[in-house]
């Protein structure tokens, strides 16, 4: 029993790291621009495919591949912002329209990937081979890298958005564009930075995940849904809360899988999410106001 629990804990940690990376990317765009980017999962998928093309098909090595995946995803993110989000700023139903345009971007990316890379599954090699045993549960060394890297990245983003001038200006732009412009913030640049950063994060996550899961055009869908749940638990807004919620959900999910089986786990997660929102409309860690 103990062993099973430990295994669940470790697999919760892996899931939590993944969700934290995904959700914090979503959260960056949400807190700064007030846009919920439904193409986030698809950007992750693009990161994985590009990493595969560069490292496997072109044989340039895995690290180059990961870098390329991150970069291409970032560029696509900037492009999405420029073409699909910026034109609707200040529109009365902007939230809804951007939900729709980013959904459209998701469709375009997914179908485009299908055309370019075909329907067959791909996989990346691992950064480090071999297995690591944590608390008696075995995971691959690559997953261990993910687990280790996630908090570092999260911390870096947190520092960036709260402590640096650029980071703060992103938040300001998200809250009031005109006022931001009037104190000298370059609004379009800020938008591009926020989207590019978030997309780069997605691309990196995808490239790392591509060694653990199979790369398919729809591989981003499931992490995106989980990231949504995370974001709800955490309460949209603060990065720390999002990260905390990510690990919490990862653990809960892993434990639920052990106790209830995979079948009812999503059901219970969704139910929990609704219940949380009924009693705490701003998330578990969200303020009351």
């Amino acid at each position, binding site marked *: 029993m103990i062993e099973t629990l430990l295994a669940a804990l470790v697999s919760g940690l892996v899931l939590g790291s993944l969700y934290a990376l995904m959700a914090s990317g979503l959260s960056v765009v949400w807190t700064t621009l007030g846009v919920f980017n439904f193409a986030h999962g698809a950007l992750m998928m693009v990161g994985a495919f590009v990493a595969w093309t560069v490292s496997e098909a072109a044989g340039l090595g895995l690290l180059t591949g990961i870098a390329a995946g991150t970069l291409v995803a970032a560029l696509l993110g900037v492009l999405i912002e420029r073409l699909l989000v910026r034109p609707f700023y200040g529109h009365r139903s902007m939230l809804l329209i951007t939900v729709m345009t980013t959904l459209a971007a998701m469709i375009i990316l997914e179908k485009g990937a299908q055309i370019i890379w075909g329907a067959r599954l791909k996989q990346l090699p691992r950064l480090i081979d071999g297995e690591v045993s944590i608390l008696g549960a075995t995971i691959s060394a690559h997953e261990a890298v993910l687990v280790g890297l996630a908090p570092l990245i999260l911390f870096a983003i947190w520092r960036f958005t709260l402590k640096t001038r650029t980071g703060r200006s992103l*938040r*300001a732009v998200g809250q*009031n564009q*005109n006022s931001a412009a*009037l*104190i*000298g913030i370059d*609004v379009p640049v800020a938008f591009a930075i926020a989207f590019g950063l978030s997309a780069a994060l997605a691309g990196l996550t995808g490239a790392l995940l591509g060694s653990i899961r199979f790369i398919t055009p729809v591989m981003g869908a499931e992490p995106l849904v989980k990231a949504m749940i995370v974001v709800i638990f955490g309460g949209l807004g603060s990065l720390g809360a999002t990260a905390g919620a990510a690990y919490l959900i990862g653990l809960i999910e892993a434990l639920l899988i052990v106790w209830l089986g995979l079948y009812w786990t999503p059901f219970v997660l969704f139910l929990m999410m609704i219940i949380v929102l009924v009693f705490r409309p701003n998330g578990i860690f969200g303020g009351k106001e």
Partner: protein
Amino acid sequence: MDNLLTVSGVTAGYGPITVLRGLSLHLGAGECIGLFGPNGHGKTTLLQTISGLIRPTSGSIEFDGRELTRLRPPHIVEAGLVQSPQGNTLFGDMRVQETLELAAFSKHARDDRQSNLEKVFALFPRLEERRPQKARTLSGGERQMLSIGCALMCAPRLLMLDEPTLGLSPRLKEELAQAVGSIAKEGIPLIVVEQDVEFLMALADRLYLIEHGEVVREIDRANAPDHDEVMRLYFGEAAG
């Protein structure tokens, strides 16, 4: 020309709606001018156009010998042209302190950040009390103070205030008048938009009456603005 700011023949508006119709005015170095006129006749629109938030469809704006018409807002602020907008909608979820620090965003404003912050707090002690509060929850007057404070943090070379006394208590209004006066005395030229003409007259060297997007009267010290006459003019025009 020793004019710091020259607005000539500016036409601007919102999409199909034209608000400013060939408006011209100017401001000399160290001068303080006031704009007044009935509601909805384009004063705010003018300030927004000067700040680059609205692109004029024709006409030109020159600041310090430099053409501004093509520049985008961040560059205009960088040049030292700063405004405190009407309605004082700031960054709702940012705290007072954060907001003020961020407001010193442009390159040349950053150096004086600390001293400017002290100045702002000296001017509005209430803001210092409410430092950790989120802007969204401030009272109407407090928000107005924060808005003006932000503008001061930008190290303005020309400061534009859009209805700064809106919602301020009589006492604060008076203090603000003094503060603005001392800003002007420090040599920072001002453009002030106000409904309270008495407030304006105490402050400004020249007044422009704006109606239907045009300057309909220019009143300066030289052609001896008689208080009653201005009031009559204002009442008469606005009522009609």
